[in-house]
């Protein structure tokens, strides 16, 4: 399957949207070449603000721009975007519902070589806990572009997680991204996998393997980590014999935990969570090695489905 860069999609979308809307401004903390926001600078130098390596100031500055009618997008590595500026996001952005779009780039373990200080296994989980914030976790480059279009017109603060690596394209460019909606990727009647981000492609691979074993799995792309809507989830649990969740984040406060809390008392099915245990990342030569080490590879999803189905 064709792979595309989510980061490039982010940068390209900024430029495309910047042509249509002169209120869009972009801020960066000296990582524009990694996040790909630098392409906006080339097109719109007056609307691109290099803030230096100062993420807290960048967050609150974005709030000021938003409160004065601009639509700021700021990007840096997810670990700094969400963690270093948590209180600034809380007070300057989330409380006043400022129209700031935060891009947490190189999320999860995707910055595989740089190790635990640069890998973010908790950014989406942290930001989800803030009232007024929405959290988006696209599974491919096409979904990034659609989400970016949505984010320009959305009113309120938002966080989007972008994977550093090229990922297979699973979604269709047709239609618009709808907040809170979840999207089926494969069909199958035995179990449902609620997957997010990179785990959508991993889950689809697992579903292929399971098909050979005679097990039908429906993989669903949950790209709105927040809001997470019970009625959307229930559409896909009906008739299934097991639920599996898959995320590239710590399980505590993550997608699986969120789904479990919504479905408890509603659905009584075996439930398996694929996610990272209470651990930080580590350096590796390749991304796949890390997914294997932290228990979130295709094989782990395959095994989780079998376990949930008692097979």
């Amino acid at each position, binding site marked *: 399957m064709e792979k595309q860069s989510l980061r490039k999609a982010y940068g390209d979308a900024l430029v495309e949207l910047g042509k249509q809307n002169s209120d869009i*401004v972009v801020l960066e903390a000296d990582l524009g070449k990694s996040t790909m926001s630098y392409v906006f600078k080339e097109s719109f130098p*007056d*609307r691109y*603000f290099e*803030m*230096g390596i*100062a993420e*807290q*100031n960048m*967050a*609150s*500055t*974005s*709030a*000021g*721009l*938003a*409160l*004065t*009618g*601009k639509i*700021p997008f700021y990007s840096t590595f997810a670990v700094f975007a969400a963690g270093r500026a948590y*209180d*600034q996001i*809380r*007070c*300057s952005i989330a*409380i*006043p519902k400022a129209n700031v779009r935060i891009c947490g780039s190189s999320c999860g373990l995707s910055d595989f070589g740089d190790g635990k200080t640069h890998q973010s296994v908790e950014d989406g989980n942290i930001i989800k806990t803030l009232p007024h914030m929405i959290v988006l976790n696209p599974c491919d480059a096409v979904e990034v572009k659609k989400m970016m279009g949505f984010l320009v017109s959305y009113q309120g603060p938002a966080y989007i997680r972008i994977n550093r690596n090229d990922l297979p394209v699973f979604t269709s460019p047709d239609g618009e991204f709808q907040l809170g909606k979840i999207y089926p990727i494969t069909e199958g009647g035995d179990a449902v996998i609620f997957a997010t981000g990179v785990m959508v492609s991993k889950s689809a691979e697992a579903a292929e393997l399971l098909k050979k074993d005679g097990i039908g799995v429906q993989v669903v792309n949950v790209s709105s980590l927040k809001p997470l809507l019970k009625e959307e989830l229930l559409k896909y649990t009906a008739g299934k014999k097991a639920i599996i969740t898959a995320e590239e984040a710590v399980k505590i406060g993550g997608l699986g935990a969120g789904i479990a809390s919504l479905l408890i008392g509603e659905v009584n099915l075996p439930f398996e969570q694929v996610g990272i245990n209470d651990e930080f990342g580590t350096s590796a030569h390749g991304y796949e090695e890390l997914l294997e080490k932290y228990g979130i590879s295709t094989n782990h999803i395959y095994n989780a489905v079998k376990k949930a189905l008692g097979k």
Partner: protein
Amino acid sequence: MLKPEEKKDLQKIALQLRYDLVEMIGIGAAGHLGGSCSLAETIALLYFHKMNFSADRLKDPNRDRLVLSKGHAALIQYAALCEARCFPREELKRVKTLGGLLQGHPDMSIPGLEAVTGSLGQGLSISLGIALALRLNKSPARVYTIMGDGEQSEGQLWEAAMAVANFKLDNLTAFIDYNQVQATGPTKDVFNIPELDKKWSAFGWNVINAKGHDVENILEAVEKAETLKGKPSVIILETIKGKGFSFAEGNPAYHNGTFTEETYKQALKELDAVKAGL
């Protein structure tokens, strides 16, 4: 320059703001009297003389903005916004109560407030964003940011100081309420930050000193700041924490203090004496 009657009017407003502080805090409850009083003249001058501000144009894109980075001094700003008729006077009595409009720290649900502040060190950054947007919009409006001297220990503030200078934003004027007392004691004993003027100057700012309880002197400093182009300006306001109340002046207990019945009466008596002389 202020005309004599303008000066007197501003002094009367600063006095009224202090009356309002006493009313808001009341007997037996706590409130940030000290750091509010040190700003009474500055706030009166900005809202009622200098700024392009009026209650019927709170969303005017070309209004001047005031961001109170030292958000704990919210009471003095509430008093001014009330005086400017941004909300009814009854709200002053309901400050910090459940269901009241006026929150313990500045919230944007309050008409006339431009930012959520109180978590210290963020106000200058927010002002930077506002100033950048105003410059993009070619707006004549200005941004005024008031910081505390204790707040100078927040690291984000220096990130912002560098950035504002880097972007050469001369549409932003910052103030430091240099009252030399913070929550737990004199600033020099709690966390000494010597040579503030040299620090700001080294970060690329025009540094201007002003007598913070003299409306004419504050205005001179503000006007000087506005004529200096290509660089932002910071005005160090020499002030007295708790100014206007003998028992509170320079007293850390009134950073967030409580009036007894006795001090409450004394406070009103002292204000009445000033009123009689105006």
